[in-house]
């Protein structure tokens, strides 16, 4: 077991970077350099353990790994805390940062700074971290070291000479970087004699051992077996084991002030172990005050998930229950759609989170799902009463409420200045309000916009990328609710509203949405034996209409020569196809039409920046 380390020899740090700026590769080099992973076991993106993570090249769950490094006869304990890299997980990022004293700010020497670099830099600075700026990928022929060094130095407020140049790929400069971390990042300063206070910066669920919390001990010590108290949830538990990742889980007798490691909590429900909560000891040893900064996870984006085959409802419920064990941010409640049957309205931290959940449900539980178009949470206010709307079809009809409020975010966009025009245009078209603009360099600008969240969960990010030839980057954070002119647009098939297609949109965009939807559905709804009207409406007012003309031909023209078997089989196939139709009023709608009509919206949606 590792011996107790003097706090002065401990360094807790993380790497913050934009997606693809090489964080995982640099982490691999650090593992090698410190001989934390034997050479024969080394593989790429070592810390991104889950299969899903590896494929997406992102990190869902923060991890902490202990590295041992000796400089001038001093053995150092370095804890590298891996932070999640997506705006969906800003809160989790902030908790991971709170567990550190320093951060390597890593920027691709060919790409330069991006919106996430900036957003995370500000988060890290606000958390009081010492920033070690470094340019990565200097081995690339297109690396522009001098220019980006100046930009980065200016941001951090240091001399350009202090910006290190490394290559995670070749290992060039990595030793120097590690030594710079030891030199600049201060050791942890907690009080080893005070009562235990440890910050939970992440958790995961182990099917055999229950909930495992990732913790940073600030004050006191966390013995391996102890009765602990989770201060926000008020739960006491007999913790089974404390340990560190080196990089595999290794038990320790105790985690002491300043150290980072894991705690097998003895609890089975991940919702009892919340990120941001403080672990103390139970009973008389309990700390007076928890560490600051705790917040409940807040779903930002909602979507209905339905089994493609109606019979799979129970399986979907069980799968969501299982997933919830390891995903504290996932919320869901049963709901019924006339069109899609029984399913669940699910709340997610953001679109990436939604994608991950949906993909895990499909992959790990072999479910085929239909997801309704994502929406934000609306508030319909009537007098003192606020109706919280998670499903557009539940939005009250116009005239029955005083006003509607929608979530607003503060968006930060970094773009080459030559694309400022298109960026402004896009933001204006998304009801954005320009707050501030500044130049990072003569060629690059940073703009701040106030935007409705609902406007960026659709194709905003894709649009931003395509209008700036991929150069602009986006980050956003929620800043509350504001009054808005929103209306519910319904889609009717042959006079029957189809709940799955209802949407809450801004009044000015209602017509466009309605028109788009009826046109799309006209292509997707097969012809029936009668004319089918497809209409979009606001309340009782029809704003768009298309007609699917009655079908006139459906016959096997030639049927003789004795090969009746084949004709019968064709009919049997057609019959099977009919069995897959869902009936909405009198209209038969194929499953694919729902998926396709909803998918187009899905295809349009934001993949707002991911940091690697």
């Amino acid at each position, binding site marked *: 077991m590792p011996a107790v380390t003097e706090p002065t020899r401990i360094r807790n740090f993380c790497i913050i970077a934009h997606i693809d700026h090489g964080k995982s590769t640099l982490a691999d080099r650090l593992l090698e350099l410190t001989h934390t992973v034997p050479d024969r076991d080394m593989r790429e993106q070592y810390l991104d353990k889950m299969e899903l993570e590896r494929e997406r090249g992102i990190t869902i769950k923060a991890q902490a790994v202990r590295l041992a490094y000796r400089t001038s006869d001093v053995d150092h304990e370095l804890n590298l805390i891996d932070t999640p890299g997506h705006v969906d997980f800003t809160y989790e990022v902030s908790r991971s940062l709170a567990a550190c004293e320093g951060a390597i700010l890593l920027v691709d020497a060919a790409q330069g700074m991006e919106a996430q670099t900036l957003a995370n830099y500000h988060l890290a600075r606000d958390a009081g971290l010492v920033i070690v700026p470094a340019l990565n990928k200097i081995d690339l022929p297109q690396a522009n070291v001098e220019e980006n060094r100046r930009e980065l130095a200016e941001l951090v407020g240091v001399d350009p000479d202090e910006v290190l140049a490394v290559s995670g790929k070749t290992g060039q400069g990595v030793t120097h970087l590690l030594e710079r971390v030891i030199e600049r990042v201060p050791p942890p300063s907690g009080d080893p004699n005070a009562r235990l206070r440890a910050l939970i910066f992440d958790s995961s669920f182990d099917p055999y051992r229950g909930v495992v919390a990732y913790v940073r001990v600030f004050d006191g010590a966390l013995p391996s077996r102890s009765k602990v108290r989770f201060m926000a949830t008020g739960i006491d538990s007999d913790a089974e084991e404390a340990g560190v990742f080196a990089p595999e889980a290794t038990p320790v007798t105790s985690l002491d002030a300043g150290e980072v490691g894991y705690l097998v909590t003895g609890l089975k429900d991940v919702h009892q172990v919340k990120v941001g909560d403080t672990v103390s000891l139970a009973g008389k040893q309990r700390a007076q005050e928890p560490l600051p900064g705790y917040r409940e996870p807040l779903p930002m984006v909602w979507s209905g998930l339905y089994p493609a085959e109606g019979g799979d409802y129970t399986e979907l419920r069980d799968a969501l229950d299982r997933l919830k064990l390891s995903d504290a941010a996932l919320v869901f409640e049963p709901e019924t759609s006339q069109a899609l049957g029984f399913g669940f309205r699910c709340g997610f931290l953001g679109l990436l989170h939604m994608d991950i959940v949906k993909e895990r449900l499909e992959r790990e539980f072999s479910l085929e799902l239909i997801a309704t178009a994502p929406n934000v949470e609306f508030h319909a206010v009537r007098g003192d009463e606020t109706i919280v709307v998670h499903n557009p079809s539940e939005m009250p009809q116009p005239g029955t409420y005083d006003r509607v409020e929608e979530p607003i975010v503060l968006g930060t966009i970094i773009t080459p200045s030559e694309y400022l025009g298109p960026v402004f245009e896009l933001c204006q078209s998304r009801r954005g309000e320009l707050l501030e603009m500044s130049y990072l360099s003569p060629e690059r600008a940073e703009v701040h916009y106030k935007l409705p969240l609902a406007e960026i969960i659709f194709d905003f990010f894709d649009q931003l990328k395509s209008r700036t030839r991929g150069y602009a980057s986006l980050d956003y954070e929620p800043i509350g609710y504001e009054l808005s002119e929103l209306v519910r647009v319904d889609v009717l098939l042959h006079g029957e509203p189809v709940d799955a297609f209802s949407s809450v949109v801004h009044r000015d965009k209602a017509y466009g949405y309605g028109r788009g939807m009826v046109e799309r559905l006209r292509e997707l709804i097969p012809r029936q034996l009668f004319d089918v009207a497809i209409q979009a409406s606001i309340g009782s007012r029809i704003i768009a209409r298309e007609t699917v*003309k009655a*079908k006139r031909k459906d*016959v096997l023209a030639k049927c003789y*020569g004795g090969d009746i078997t084949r*004709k*019968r089989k064709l009919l049997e196939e057609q019959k099977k196809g*009919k069995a897959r139709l869902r009936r909405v009023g009198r209209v038969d709608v194929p499953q694919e039409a729902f998926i396709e009509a909803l998918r187009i919206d899905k295809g349009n949606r934001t993949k707002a920046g991911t940091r690697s």
Partner: protein
Amino acid sequence: MSAGLYVHVPFCVTRCGYCDFNAYAGLDHLRSRYLAAQVREAELAAPEWLGETFASAFLGGGTPTTLDVEDLQALVSRLRSTLDVASDAEITIEANPDTVDRAKLSALLDAGYTRLSMGAQSFDRTVLESLERLHDPDSVKRAMHAAREAGYANVNVDLIYGANGETLESWERTLRVTVDLQPEHVSAYALTIEQSTSLGRKVQRGVVPAPDADLQADMFELACEVLGEAGFHHYEVSNWAKPGLECRHNLGYWERRPYLGLGAGAHSYRDGRRWWNVRPPEEYLSLVESGRLPVGGEEHLTPQEEDLEEIFLKLRTLEGIPVISVASGVALGFLEQGLLRMVDDHLVPTERGMFLLNELVLGLAS
């Protein structure tokens, strides 16, 4: 119950782009072996069909008239001596207009081929080209004339509508020319794209547009109108006849009477069993020549399959199905929509219903 006899002749001069029948160009060297094998197959099958009278026979293909007239004469007489073919049997032969003249047709009529089915397809050159049919539209008129001179009193004209490039106007001209030729029977088929054909592949690649279903529906309605006015009786989805001259052989399929198919790929049906011969002519030959029935597969219809066939075959014709055999609610809906009508205690498709037959069948069969 009388049976039908189908004789498949797989030889063609060329292969048409839309055709997915078991037919081959360039296999003419197999002709004499093939004819001998068909007679041999009839002999092998005969014991099983003992006591069954064949009220009709149909020589289809392929192009049966590519065979020499002597061979065709011999074939029918050998079949008559092997199987119990009724003396007044309707014996149809499919004819390509370019492969017949007056002398050949006279000989065929003498040999006992009582009915002629002429593959006209269209009288519009553009449409024929689009179908990759080689004949000249005028050759149909000549062949028709020759048939009359030879003494044929029961002639069918086969038409296909909805090919790429065909307009409603062009189709109307084809219908009018057909009516002017005064056949006893007209078969008019909406062109169906089969994936396995060269046309099917062109449609898949987007080189040729798929037929427009609405235009085909317009063409169908026009055929109903023009042929109806000319005194033809619309007795099956794609078939019209002067009263009393319906094709007895094809009615046998739709009325689910037994049939024996001879030749490569031919299908047979009797007592709930359907079986089919191997398709490649060479394989067919080697099996028959070694004294074996050339059966390539078979099926025994389940009660559900029987029900489905009963509905989808009988509903093709004006015979229809007994109202008592189906769910009344569904039937009522179709009656209200004007897709079915009641004739005594039977449900019979209207002309509009005929063109939506799959919908009717799938509604009624569930």
